[in-house]
């Protein structure tokens, strides 16, 4: 039953922010009951009685007016100060925090840990250690929100923002996007796994850590690049084995060195410089791949040439 009213407290910031919340709940309840009670009391005590009449008074009281101007004013400043102190806590990550990068895009969270370990939507963190998350967005505004830690911050395209927290309890917690970001906004989230430090270390190492080449290879297959660039004779696209660094002859007769820039261009604007002997069949991927994807694919194509060279 309690879980329907009290959210889980799983970070140091939660233990600092919750007292203020519950204090204000009690304070608000007293204010509302006080005013409500006063209204009901007056409405009953001073109800109209037939045949009787309480003559109207010229009502005015400087003392009362000052009371209910000054007290809420002072109360407001106190609440401001408490809130600002808490925010100061939230805004300044301690030295030596574990750094994790997050990129938001419609509609997923892409996470990269310090050693290159990546994950999507979920987040693995160690318990008892400050974690600083640096965030940016690839498209629209998002907001990284972990209710059990009481932290959230907008994820803004074109700039870095950050949050930090120190988890205090192992377990699994919700992770949400809190800034409306389009169709799948409510599905843009996952689970935060708070682990013992040794489990986290093991997870970092033992998990399927994906290097950029491996991500590129995955994309190469998933996006169907492999269908045409199969390497078989008579395939619709050129064989990419060893292409990196080589000199390619174009349909126009010109020659070009297949460097990173040429590879990138051939993915984003493939019709510009087509290899001799092939038709300009390949669609542009400029609106379908992120910059990260392109980097991964280029890394993968480069690795193909390395393998070739080793053989």
């Amino acid at each position: 039953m309690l879980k329907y009213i009290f959210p889980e407290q799983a970070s140091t910031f939660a233990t600092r922010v919750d007292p203020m919340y519950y204090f204000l709940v009690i304070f608000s309840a007293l204010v509302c009951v006080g005013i409500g009670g006063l209204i009901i009391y007056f409405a009953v005590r001073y109800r109209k009685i037939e045949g009787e009449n309480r003559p109207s008074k010229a009502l005015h009281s400087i003392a009362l007016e000052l009371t209910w101007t000054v007290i809420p004013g002072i109360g407001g400043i106190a609440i401001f100060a408490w809130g600002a102190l808490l925010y100061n806590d939230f805004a300044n990550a301690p030295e030596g925090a574990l750094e994790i990068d997050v990129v938001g895009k419609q509609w997923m969270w892409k996470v990269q840990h310090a050693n290159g370990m990546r994950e999507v939507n979920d987040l693995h963190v160690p318990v008892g250690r400050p974690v600083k998350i640096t965030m940016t967005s690839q498209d629209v505004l998002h907001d990284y929100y972990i209710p059990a830690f009481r932290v959230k911050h907008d994820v803004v395209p074109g700039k870095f923002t950050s949050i930090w927290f120190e988890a205090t309890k192992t377990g699994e917690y919700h992770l949400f996007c809190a800034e409306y970001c389009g169709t799948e906004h409510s599905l843009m989230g996952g689970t935060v796994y708070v682990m013992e430090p040794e489990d986290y270390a093991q997870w970092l190492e033992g998990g399927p850590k994906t290097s950029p080449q491996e991500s590129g290879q995955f994309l190469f297959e998933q996006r169907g690049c492999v269908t045409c660039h199969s390497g078989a004779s008579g395939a619709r696209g050129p064989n990419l084995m060893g292409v990196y660094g080589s000199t390619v002859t174009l349909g126009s007769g010109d020659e070009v060195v297949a460097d990173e820039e040429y590879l990138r261009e051939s993915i984003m604007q493939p019709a510009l410089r087509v290899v001799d002997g092939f038709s300009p069949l390949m669609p542009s991927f400029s609106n379908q791949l992120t910059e990260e994807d392109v980097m991964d694919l280029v890394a993968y194509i480069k690795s193909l040439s390395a393998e070739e060279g080793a053989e």
Partner: protein
Amino acid sequence: MAVIADREGAYAPPVREENYLTWDHSIKSWLFTQDHKRIAILYLISITVFFLLGGIFAMLFRIELLTPAGDVFEADRYNKFFTLHGVIMIFFFLIPSVPATLGNFLVPIMVGARDLAFPKINLASWWVFNVAGVFALLVLVTGGVDTGWTFYSPLSTSYANTSVFLAVTAAFAAGFSSILTGINFIVTVHKMRAPGLTWFRLPLFIWANYATGVVIMLGTPVVAITLFLIAVERLWGVGIFDPALGGDSVLFQHMFWFYSHPAVYIMILPGFGVISEIIPCFSRNRIFGYPFIAFSTLSIAILGFFVWGHHMFVSGQSFYTGMVFSFLTMFIAAPTAVKIMNWTFTLHGGNVIMTTPMLYAIGFIGLFTIGGVTGLFLAAMGLDVPLHDTYFVVAHFHFTMVGGMAMAFFAGIHFWWPKMIGKMYPEFMGKFACIIIFTGFNLTFMPQFIVGWLGMPRRYHAYPEEWQVLNVMSTAGASILGFGFLACIACLIWSAFWGKPAKQNPWGAKGLEWEVCTSPPHPHNFTSIPVVTEEAYSYTGEEVLDID
């Protein structure tokens, strides 16, 4: 302002015993009327249509939220529902609600004038509003809009492929209609007060609408610019807000909230004015602390322009910027508390009569107080971090906007219904609907405070299973609330046709509209210019209800 002296020969009183509703029945005499009272009725019809439309969208997404999975409607459709609910309720109901209906009807009468200063501009306001309404309906038939009512860029400018342009145009045009109303109120209050009607004899309803007019005049052009820039970026790809085009999305939020925070005072201040009329009337008592209520209205209107950044504590504005906005926001607590306490103490020593408008007014004070104190949670920077963009915010602003403004609107409509329509609504039905609305409202939005604190973000099509109980409670409450609104509207419409004729002053109320004007008023309001010799709310306690 009880004593009215005739000034002979001011102008010749019309001969016929007619009122503004009956003197001409032609359609043209309604659609092109320059009579502020008829324009008020036209506005009342327009906004009622939009209120019902906005309510239908609310019911549709509350149905979706009965189950944790997003299974009733597709995500895109759900997103359109809450966007349309917000756009319609804010731009087409809340902002025009009291000023365009009760304000249009009462401002000239309360200051003792024959009409507003610019009757043609007033008519233009209604027409512009309806052009805006046509754009809003075009949004519906062209597939809706799914950006949220806040139109945050770059979602609205570079990513949404729905009718954003039409929706922005609708809001833009609706803004102009409110500017036209605002300028009319300001000039009328300055230039057209009756002899003897000094500033501090003005009813507080006039102070409230005057302050609203000022906020409208200063704030609305900024949202017009903002919405225009959205259209520019969207149509021609000029980079203003989208970082991919070289813009700044946080800039959009600053410009948007520079209007949209004062806009909540555009919505609530006229409601304060309504409550300030009703409470003294049914307490049979002078209002407590008249000058303090008047000045608190002005101070809220001014302070309202310096707090917009409290919507952006976690948007990427700097810590120190946030501190300034948080600090200034806290000062709004004082004038708000002043109002609530003065209304409460107006009951003290009075002769309290529980009519339907009084019931709504008291419900307003209770619900608005809850809306106010929960605002403190959100204005405290550190506490806003977990609460921002959750259902806690949704509940907070519905307590102020529905629990506050809609309650005040219905209080005012019931109070002045006999004057506007000339018929009495059935008192029992009125109270019944009020209690249903109050109950349904609390059941709808109380659980949202809790589910927001638990962490449920707003604008969510699907949500974790453990929050289903609270969401089902909320939907159940919304059904009761919807029924209450329908009962209230049906009761009023019924009474317009079949209700008992109203006497000139059924409530025994003070004020020119009750003491001088017939029910419904003469087309020219007054047959001779009234002269005011007393302060407002000079109740003696001896006034009696004049109802059959």
